[in-house]
């Protein structure tokens, strides 16, 4: 297993795999395969994939430790950047399809609607993480500070989930929301539990890794 994960083709393969949802959406939009309301379909899909990649990213460390597969860590950065990629597409879709790129309307909308504000804040929290994802930034910040900064992902996870919950709650459609609550609950709960037991030094679960 470890050898498979360390295979030189593993990373390019994962890169392409993570891009597939995007390519599928681009194809769907071009071929008019997204149903009667393509704008809505694109917005929902990019939001869904942001949450899915967030879950995958946060699953890397627990899996790495529980399955004793240190090689898993080499995929974490790419998965994390894909969270940002899909979040960016989601924001872009909202700004474009819903708001027609009218900056005044967008700022007004963000300020006016808590649901949008929470989503936008999630995006803002993810931005410094994406910007400091390269090795030089880690060295420049120092591992310790870099770790502290990247703990923002936990806040982003909670706010992202709140954004999704808010969208669904008025229609009482909480089944999918609860799936994400359960997954993220386990992933975040595991971290809290470890710290509670004193197994790990602060931040050890978020150890930066060399490529």
């Amino acid at each position, binding site marked *: 297993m470890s050898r498979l994960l360390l295979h030189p083709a593993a990373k390019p393969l994962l890169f392409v795999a993570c891009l597939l949802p995007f390519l599928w959406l681009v194809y769907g*939009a071009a071929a008019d395969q997204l*149903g009667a309301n393509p704008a809505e379909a694109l917005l929902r899909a990019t939001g869904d994939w942001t949450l899915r990649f967030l879950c995958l990213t946060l699953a890397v460390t627990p899996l790495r430790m529980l399955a004793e597969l240190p090689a898993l860590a080499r995929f974490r950065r790419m998965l994390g950047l894909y969270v940002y990629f899909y979040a960016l597409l989601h924001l872009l879709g909202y700004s474009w399809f819903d708001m027609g790129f009218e900056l005044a309307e967008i700022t007004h909308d963000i300020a006016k609607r808590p649901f949008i504000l929470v989503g936008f804040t999630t995006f803002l929290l993810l931005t410094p993480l994406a910007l400091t994802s390269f090795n030089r930034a880690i060295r420049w910040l120092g591992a310790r500070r870099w770790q502290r900064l990247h703990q923002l992902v936990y806040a982003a996870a909670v706010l992202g989930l709140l954004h999704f919950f808010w969208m669904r709650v008025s229609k009482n459609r909480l089944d999918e929301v609860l799936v994400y609550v359960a997954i993220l609950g386990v992933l975040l709960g595991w971290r809290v539990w470890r710290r509670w037991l004193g197994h790990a030094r602060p931040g050890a679960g978020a150890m930066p890794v060399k490529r």
Partner: protein
Amino acid sequence: MLIKTHADGFIHPHTSDITPQAVYLQRRALMQRMAAGMAGATLASWTMRDALAQTGGRVAPMTATKSAVSGATTVEKITDYKDATGYNNFYEFGLDKSDPARNAHTLKTTPWTVTVEGLVKKPANYALEDLLKLSPQEERIYRLRCVEGWSMVLPWVGYSLAELIRRVEPLGSAKYVEFVTLADRKTMPYVGSRVLDWPYVEGLRLDEAMHPLTLLAFGMYGEVLPKQNGAPVRLVVPWKYGFKSGKSLVRIRFTDTQPATAWSGAAPQEYGFYSNVNPTVDHPRWSQATERRIGEDGLFSKKRKTLMFNGYEPQVGQLYAGMDLRKFF
């Protein structure tokens, strides 16, 4: 058209005013074919193809006459049949827009009875056959604006609900009309899900229900209603958000108190009893100022402005004279 005289001097037409040669030649070819008697056949097959694309030809046709009611026939482009029957909110058959088209085949529409009861002189159980014959069927082309921010243009077949109301003779004490829709666990897989309280109930003020634009619909696109669109009989209130127009009606009840409707019960701060289309009163989570016309407004084109009362203000505005529409949203 601008008429140009010698006094205008030497004016060239805009290039866009000049008929392109290709078009000109096409016209010539068409005229030649017409002269040869071929145009009849060509046009016939062309219009037929259009008609088939519109209806899909899967359900029984219905005949109807053009409606004389003011505002009842918009000339906007009619939404594709495929979108109108494949993109539906009908939670009894699933929560995704594509679910009703997939699941509604289990709905049993015969026999069907609509009970009219409550504060009326002549309560009655109407068999669907009798209800169909109660008044001449009219075609009405209405805009439909969903509270979610999208819209369609749909050709309904039906008659004014007022026709039925007049026949049952409401008592003076009747102030509201409640519409109860079918909730059959055996044929509707999502009845019993926690999304809403079942059955789905909607309501109107009596004067709203009596308005000639309020339609009791039995068909669309010249055919009987597809099941996912609320067969065999539904309400269509074009100046209100779509969810006010209950599908698959089984009971119409006249009351003196405002009915407790499904969505205003589930989320009272988001969905009011009136739910008139109103671009100035936003939903808490999104603006109602604009809408996306399904199948027409491209992915990257700007959304169109939503009109007050969905464009039916001249017809229905007076129903709400003096009312604070922010409070009674």
